[in-house]
């Protein structure tokens, strides 16, 4: 199995969820993050001093998938998250040895 991790723009979350859902994904996990890359942060003014906040808010989406679906679903995420502007984020695929569904204790692909 694989884990697809996507760090995307927060306002693209709804589209990514919808696209994954349409592609048959039935579960995912979301968390808050922030990051920087080519996208610069912004300047804040505070009491007679300007300073730079380089971290920009992002959302992290994680989806556990079958090996076979990984490449395709990563494309689905990229398609939904893309705005073409700097700061759109990254998607990566990493190997997973095993997955267990807590409720039943079942493991392997059935646990997805």
């Amino acid at each position, binding site marked *: 199995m694989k884990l697809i991790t996507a760090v995307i723009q927060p*306002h693209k979350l*709804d589209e990514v969820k919808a696209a994954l859902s349409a592609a048959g994904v039935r579960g995912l996990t979301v968390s808050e993050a*922030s990051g920087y890359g080519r996208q610069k942060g*912004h*300047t*804040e*003014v*505070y009491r007679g001093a300007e300073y730079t*906040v380089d*971290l920009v*808010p992002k959302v992290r989406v994680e989806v556990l998938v079958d090996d076979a679906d990984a490449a395709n679903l990563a494309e689905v995420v990229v398609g939904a998250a893309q705005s073409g502007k700097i700061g759109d984020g990254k998607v990566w695929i990493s190997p997973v040895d095993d997955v267990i569904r807590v409720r039943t204790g079942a493991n392997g692909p059935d646990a997805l």
Partner: protein
Amino acid sequence: MEPFIDTGITAWMLVSASLVLLMTPGLALFYGGMTRAKSVLNMMMMCFGAIALIGVIYPLWGWSMSYGASIGGIFGNPFDQFGLGGSFDPIAVLNEETGASMPTMVDVGFQATFAIITVALIAGAIADRVKFSTWMVFAGLWTTLAFFPMAHMVWSGGLLSDDGPFAGIASPIDFAGGTVVHINAGVAGLVLALIVGKRKGFGTEPMKPHNMPLVMLGAALLWFGWFGFNAGSAYGADEVAGLAWVNTTTAAAAAVLGWLLVEKIKYGKATSLGAASGIVAGLVAITPAAGALTPVTSIILGAVAGVLCALAVSLKHKLGYDDSLDVVGVHLVGGLVGTVLIGFLATDGGLFFGDGVNLLIVQILIALVAVVFSGIVTVVIGLILKAAMGWRIAEEDEVRGIDLAEHAEGAYEEINS
């Protein structure tokens, strides 16, 4: 009798002015909690900016345009008492018979706070998306061209007052500002929402309140301040003030029950946002009526306002204008409900008390005049500013958050600070 400064009345009016001033920060919290976390500071700045700007304008030409020598019953001459000089009379006689008076300066403070809150109310209709500079220019122009004239017409012997043309039918009743404040601001909010346009995502994203305890606190401070607004409008520490105080409370309380009932029936749950909104709806509706009803008829008025405003806030989704924080649904609808229901419920002159339809007709007329006047003035100012300065920030900035874009600040600490 010889005028004398009644220290009791003066004390109450000093308090009332202080209470009404507190309402605008209360509004900033009420509105600010309802915005998304990325726009709360801009909303607060629209309110605090109004305090700052109108706080300066008022003593310069605001008082004079409201209470100075009348120009056609429409507005006061701004130069008559410019800077509180000229023909400014330091003593305001409140009771010709007893001579009970207060220093006019206290009234200046009291009236200034009404001007401040009125324009701040409008901000809720255009939350999250307008340039701070355009807002500030609008606030100054609108207060000068829409608020001061309306105050003059209603409260200073102008067209909509006891001395106006409608008084032949019946004396119009606007105890503390249903027309001047709420209908005026509500119409302006509707007009601006249309001119400015919808937020990106309106109708598809929920855009729900980011901090409900702030909203509740704001509603509470508004209620607290409203005692100055309504009971202060008695211009005395007497039976009328007491009645206005109690009516304010019973109407707001009943409006909460009304609003929650609508929610319970329509959605199965009574929400805290409904309670906060019900408070404001009830307070708005009782504003013009606070001295003219009994505590029991105030309960009726409040309940009706709560129910109707609860229904009215979903209109924007149906009609498709983005009145972000429901200025129209609460202030315009609530202001109309209050102004018109006086025609039915007034202890003295109300249809239900067997005094015929005259008062009802007059109340409808003054509401209509207020709607039309405010509508026209706001359209003109709104469109001129659209052309001259532009209203909207860049869409990208709206997505990222107006607090960062317009004020270079975030409301809450982030990870690396």
